Structure formats: C-alpha cells, structure tokens
C-alpha cells in the first residue's frame, strides 16, 4: 500500500508548479552569481586575503570554482529553509483546505500510512533540492571559473587540494541537509496542524529566523541555549572544509536535529490520527 500512496503523492507533487520554483530559482540564480564572482574576482581576492598579502606571496589566483561554490553556498544557505518549505507547507494543509481529504481518507487506508507517504515525499524533496543546490553550484562554478585548490580560514589559512574538495562538498551537503530536513519536519508538522498553506511557511521561517538570531547574537544565555537548537547548526557545513573534521560536532548535530525532527514527526502523527476532518 505504501508504494501506491507514494506514487499518488509523487503524481500530486509533480503536477504542481510550485514544486519546481526552488529548482528554477537555483538554476537561474547560481550562474549569475558565479559570473559575478568571476568578474569581480580581483576585488574579492583582495578583500578576502588582502591582509595576508603582507605575509604570503600568492602565485596565481585564489579565486576558482571551488572557492566560488564555497562562498555561494555559505551566503545562500540561510535562504534554503525558505525553499525547503515550499512543498512541505502545502502537502497536508492543502488537502484540508481543498477538501480532498474528505475523499482520500474515506478509503480503506490508514491515516498513518497516508501521512508517512507525505512525509517521505517532503523529506525526499528537500534532500534532492539540497543536493541539487550544492552540486549544481559546484559544477557551474567549476565550469565557469575553473578548478583549483580551495583556500579557507581554519586555524589560520588552510589550503585544500582540488581533488580533496568534492567529497567535502558532498559532506557539506549532508551536514546542511540534516538541518534542512529538521526545518522540513517543522514545516510538515505545522502543515498538519494548520488548515492553510501560508501559515506553515510564515511560522517556520519565523522560527528559523529567531533561532538564527540566537545563534549569532553573542549573549551568554544564547550561547548556552544554542547547542540545543537545530538552528544552531545552520553554518555547520563550513566545518566540512576543516582539517581535522570536528566529528563530535557532526554527531551533536545529528542528535539535536534528530531529536527535534522526532518531536515534530511524532506531533504530526499524533494530531493527524486524532483530528476530525470537518472542512
């Protein structure tokens, strides 16, 4: 049965235009930003490494596809929660508001399975979108600017060989994806509780916004709180480019995000199994 439910959800999602908004935005915007990085490479280089020029002699350019991808991901990652809510916000609330649950749930199928199929679809969508975002950015950057060693700041200046970067980008995808999956679970939960598809987007983004503020405002209480909030790991993907890798932080992210995701999923299932479909 779950296979048939998944086919149904794939059909429903694939026929909606909003499903493609995030992919379209990424596809269109990234090449523009990469071109801007390429054209403004000189000034970017001087801003990034200007002070180091007194101590080091740089031969050639530090601006290459890997650096471009690294910078673009770092800048755009904070906007990805918004894109990850596009499908999740509507997947349950849309069925309440359009009344389609009145027909769908009067069939011999359990509510748990219906909700599970929807959850799998939104988690799959977010993972696919994040993978596309990271890999497309890397590929387009390399195609337009070219390959080269990646120079990042970590306990000084860390130079990563070009061949050493692809797996790190894949790791950064996975680290950021763990957080995005939690954001998706949050949005999914609100979609289950809400009867319209705008509320989940607004509430999710507001929570992420407040959480990010907590992560970046240097107040002692916030610093104590931050490790327990999933939003505290929004920039963790940067550590994929550190050497050695902070594996304890990866585990910490998995535990915190996993706990929050479990709470959101449990709440969704609990409510959905007990709610009356009155709309």
């Amino acid at each position: 049965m779950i296979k048939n439910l998944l086919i149904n959800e794939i059909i429903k999602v694939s026929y909606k235009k909003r499903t493609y908004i995030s992919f379209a935005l990424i596809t269109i915007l990234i090449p523009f930003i990469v071109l801007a990085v390429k054209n403004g490479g000189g000034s970017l280089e001087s801003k990034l490494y200007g002070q180091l020029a007194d101590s080091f002699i740089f031969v050639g350019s530090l601006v290459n596809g890997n650096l471009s991808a690294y910078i673009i991901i770092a800048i755009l990652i904070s906007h990805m929660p918004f894109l990850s809510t596009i499908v999740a916000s509507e997947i349950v609330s849309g069925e309440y508001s359009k009344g389609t649950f009145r027909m769908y749930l009067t069939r011999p199928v359990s509510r748990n399975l219906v909700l599970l199929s929807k959850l799998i679809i939104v988690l799959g969508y977010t993972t696919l979108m994040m993978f596309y975002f990271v890999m497309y950015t890397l590929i387009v950057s390399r195609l337009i600017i070219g390959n080269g060693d990646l120079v990042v700041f970590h306990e000084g200046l860390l130079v990563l060989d070009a061949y050493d970067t692809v797996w790190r980008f894949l790791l950064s995808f996975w680290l950021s994806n763990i957080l995005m999956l939690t954001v998706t679970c949050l949005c999914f939960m609100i979609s289950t509780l809400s009867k319209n598809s705008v509320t989940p987007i607004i509430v999710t983004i507001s929570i992420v916004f407040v959480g990010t503020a907590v992560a970046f405002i240097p107040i002692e209480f916030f610093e104590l709180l931050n490790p327990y909030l999933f939003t505290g790991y929004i920039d963790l993907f940067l550590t994929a480019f550190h050497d050695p890798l902070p594996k304890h932080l990866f585990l910490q992210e998995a535990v915190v995000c996993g706990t929050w995701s479990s709470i959101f999923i449990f709440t969704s299932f609990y409510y959905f199994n007990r709610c009356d479909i009155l709309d």
Partner: protein
Amino acid sequence: MIAPALCFQNVSKRFQNIIALDQVSIDVPSNSIFGLLGPNGSGKSTLMRILAGLIKSWDGKISISGENYSSITEGYINKLGFLIEAPSFYEYLSAIENLKILSRLTNLNNIRIKETLEIVNLADRANDKVKTYSYGMKQRLGLAQCLLHNPDMLILDEPNNGLDPSGIREMSKIINNLHEKGKTICVSTHILSEVDTLCTHAAVLKKGKHLATIKLDDDYHLDTTYLLNAENAANCIKILSVYKDFNLKLVDNNSLIIKTRSQDAVKIIRQKISKTEVIHSISKQSNLIEFFDD
C-alpha cells in the same frame, strides 16, 4: 428477518459545548433509498462524517449488515462509498487521473475506472482537467469517486446541492439506476421535495436528535399536505376543524398546515375560508413539512 444495511445505535457527538448528535439511532433498510432529512445544522453531515471515519471521537455503535463497529475499520469502509458535502478533486489532474489516485488505494484496474465514468456519463470528458468541468459534471465525478470500488452502499451528502434542474434530474436518474441495481443509498438533504420523489424511507433529524423514521410507501403518498397563508390562521382552524379528514396544525398567526386525503381539499378550503377570511395563498407541500413547521 433481514438485518438493516446500516444501523446507527445511540450515536452521539459533541463539539466542545455544542451537541451535534444526541443518542441518534437509525436503521437504514437494505436496498432502500434512505433520506436523511433535516435543516442545516441538524447533524446530517456529522453523522455521515462519523460513518466515513472523518470524525474520530464519538460515542455509540454502528453496524453494517449486522456486524457491529465502534470505530472505523478498513473492512467496513470498503463496503461504503462516500460523497461528503461538495465533491473535492485534484483540479489540476484529469478525471481519469483523479480516479486512478483513488483506485490505487483499493487496487482497482483501469477497466473499472472507464465503467464508472460511463455510469455517470463522463466518459467523453475523462481526459479533461477537472478545473474545466461545470459544477454538475464535478458532482457526477464525485459520484464516480464514490462508486469506483463498487460499494454495497452509497452515502451521499446533499448530492443535488448547487445543481440546476436538469442536473438534479440527471443525478436522480443515476441514483435510481443504482438503486435498481441493488445498491442501498443514503442521501442527506434539507429539500423535502427531493425526499418525496427520490426516497423509499426517510429519517428526520433536528438539532442533533432523531425525530422520526418514515416509510415513504403508497400509504404515505395518499396524504397531501397544504400550507395555508391567511389573515388569521387560528380562525381558519376553527372553520376547518369540522372536517374530520383534515389534520390541522397551526404554524404561526398567519399560516397553518393541512394534511388530508381529500381530493377536493383546495376547493373546500377556498369555499369555507374565503367567506370570512382573506386567503393569501394555498400551496402544496411535502408531507414531511410537519417536522419543519417552526
């Protein structure tokens, strides 16, 4: 004795402080067209939603073909087909895609989808997107959703709601055809004339309570009910009370209900009343109007 197709036993539902259903017990006979009649807010839709499993917490029991259920199970829901309130679709999909989505939940094949679309006269528009359908077509597609898995019993919540007269005729024809094929059909409505023409039985709900169940047989149809509007209804009752085959009921200062088997009722009423009273109107009504006289 044949067990009723559907039996509600002391079904109650409360929404916070509002009692939506109060100990409702109704038997729906097999192979009947059963009208669930009541004004808006009487609990008809709530009863149907409970049956459909859309309302989760309720008290009482439901039995289908003699088997008791106190909660919704997959086994019993497959015996029923539901059209709850306005039909709902994935409007960006075609009719056939909409039905395929449902057919995957009951493992049905495409042949059954085509058969169902033919029953509701939508085979020629099967591949058109639902958003291009008229209201009447959507209502028929809703019936197709309901019929798709070939249930023993159809539960239709106001199926004629919003339809024009030709749409109502077409829907009634389809319902009668299904009834002739042996389906039990439970129809909720607040339109009395629909019940008179379509149903074999009717139950009346009011403010969440079951008032009566009526068999709409030949005997029922021998009665005729009139609503008389006059200057002084109480005076009219005095005048007409001498006629023993007139069953009279005062509605308000200006109107009264007259139920009779007399063929000359209108003539008698006009003759007797117009001597002393001003008659505003006499209109023929459903015999069920006595339950809705307030």
